């Protein structure tokens, strides 16, 4: 059997998630023994034409060119994996979706008219059918490996669906919110990072996006009561995965209740 052909594509992003593949130092040489890297600009100048069996897509769609390119990639790809918070929920650049983008452009550039971009930065699934999502800002590199191996073994990848909270308990990390009153969105955030923020003495800031069964109604009053500065809860949720529907809706509800904040 020939090796499956894998392509890695970049959209609007920081490159940190595809770096996760190059950061598989112990596994990389074995990995390229079982898959063929057919297109991966950050790693190789050898560019092989599609179609590809697996496409890994990093980044969000934020320009007219990207909007067109994702359609082309979908057509030439077997399984399309969106990986990283930008690809799965729009990422940090989707913060512009909540404000007047022209003001942002004016704040950064002398000549906003030179720029060609879409009003909103949006996840890949807003544009094409996505077969699998890997969450996180950045993704956990072992989840990329798990996704590829699971596909080769024709099984569903084993990704956690619980919240960060449970991983703190498993790690033996004492709860920073209960014991120190530090606002932490771990209870509503998807596990996968290893619960590293509480382990480092700070609250989770939600970079893996919403956990599938997050209880926002229960958590938000607790978070608001613990705020260290006004609107901290809004800031925590409206950040790296702020455009993910569950985080977006939770913040919208908060802002509706107190429009001045």
């Amino acid at each position, binding site marked *: 059997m020939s090796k499956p052909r894998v392509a890695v594509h970049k959209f609007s992003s920081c*490159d940190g998630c595809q770096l996760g593949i190059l950061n598989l*130092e112990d596994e990389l040489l074995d990995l390229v023994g079982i898959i063929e890297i057919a297109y991966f600009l950050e790693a190789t100048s050898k560019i092989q034409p599609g179609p590809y069996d697996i496409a890994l897509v990093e980044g969000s769609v934020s320009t007219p*060119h990207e909007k067109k390119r994702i359609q082309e990639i979908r057509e030439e790809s077997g399984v399309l994996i969106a990986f990283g918070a930008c690809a799965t929920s729009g990422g940090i650049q989707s913060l512009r979706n909540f404000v007047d983008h022209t003001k942002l452009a004016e704040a950064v550039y002398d000549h906003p008219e030179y720029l060609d971009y879409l009003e909103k930065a949006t996840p890949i699934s807003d544009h094409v059918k996505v077969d699998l999502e890997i969450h996180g800002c950045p993704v956990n590199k072992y989840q990329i490996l798990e996704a590829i191996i699971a596909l080769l073994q024709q099984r569903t990848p084993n990704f956690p669906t619980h919240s960060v909270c449970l991983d703190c308990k498993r790690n033996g990390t004492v709860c920073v919110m209960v014991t120190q009153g530090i606002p932490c969105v771990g209870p509503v955030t998807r596990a996968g990072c290893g619960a590293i923020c509480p382990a*480092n003495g700070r609250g989770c800031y939600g970079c893996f996006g919403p956990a599938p069964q997050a209880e926002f109604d229960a958590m938000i009053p607790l978070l608001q009561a613990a705020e260290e500065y006004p609107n901290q809860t809004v800031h925590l949720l409206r950040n790296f995965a702020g455009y993910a529907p569950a985080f977006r809706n939770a913040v919208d509800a908060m802002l509706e209740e107190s429009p001045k904040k």
Partner: protein
Amino acid sequence: MTKNISIPALARVEGEGALYIRTKDNKIEHIELNIYEPPRFFEGFLQGRYFQEVPDITARICGICPVAYQMSSAKALEDAFGVEISPDVYNLRRLLYCAEFIESHVLHMYMLQAPDLLGVDSVIEIAAIAPDVVKKALRSKKLGNDLLKAIGGRSVHPVSTKVGGFYRWPDKDKIKGLIEDFKWGLEFAKETARWAVGLDFPDFEMEYEYVAVSHPDHYAIYDGDVLSSTGNKVPVEEYETRYLESHVPQSTALHSHTTQGNSYFVGPLARYNLNFEQLRPTAMEIAKEIGFVPPEFNPYKGLLARAIETIEVYDVAIELMEAYDPQGPPYAKFDLKDGEGYGVSEAPRGLLYHRYKVGKDGLIKEAKITPPTAQNYAQMEADLAKLAPKVLFDRSHKEASVALEHLLRSYDPCISCSTHFLKLKHDRV
């Protein structure tokens, strides 16, 4: 008479870009490096964020050098609030920066630039010829990542840095546990430099104005003043009086130049030329042994500067790890006030400047970030203009594009920070 050249992709860089060259009668008429990485508006949406969020947010500008963004931003905000960090915080930040240099430099030397010098497409092909070398390189790169993880929880977008210091001191056993591996890493870094000097670097030189951070006591990475090879030295708060950015139509990256209108060069070769005398004995000994001493004006040899710097940072890291015994709180306490602050440090790919205006409510009023690639942009174009006539007319399209791409790759451009991928379009009219 007319010719169209199109290189569909600049590989092994970070970000997206294109190169357009128009020639007529074998003369360059127009040359334009076009970065079309989407605008991401960081400076815009930092406005209104709480200051303590800034190191986390700016890290996301670049997945390869997030620590540089965390350091320059934390320093700028500490400057705004008048915060003094403790000596132990200072040393731990230097150690964290060493970890990022190892990860980024080894990545660039072996995975991004070496394939050009060996005439292959990727490190995977190098692994087919020399598997042991690649395995060692991967081990060295991993050591950088291991230290990032020990200090920051993870290697990409680490989580421990805050304005004022660190959220907590990293575990002593984890740091000390890496020392023996780092001693191996230091020896491998020497091996790399001895190997790299024998590579067949293209013959190309330019007269550069080098600009880098410079510190009186050591080879600067984390802190210092901004020094130019013209002799001009300014403290960080005067950076914008000498270095300006402008927005050009073909790009989402802003272009920097000096107030005299000149292009300048930041990065490993700039640091090496300006601060060479401050290398520690271990790195200096190897630099002299391989005969790589300034002045050096071949941009491709940035790889050798990276090789010597990798020795330097391994050496510094080992010393800092052996001495690691933090005392007192991991961060300074301070009061918020209205203010403006400046921060500069050396990302692996060059000088990184941040400035913030912040209110006493802790919210950011204005942010200004000047990444290394924006500063090198005009210089990269000038280099291309000099190289292009030498390669465009008497070589095949593929050979010409490889030569031009290699030149750009030697800068280690982080295009996503300004804005990875280059398309050479050559029109002969």
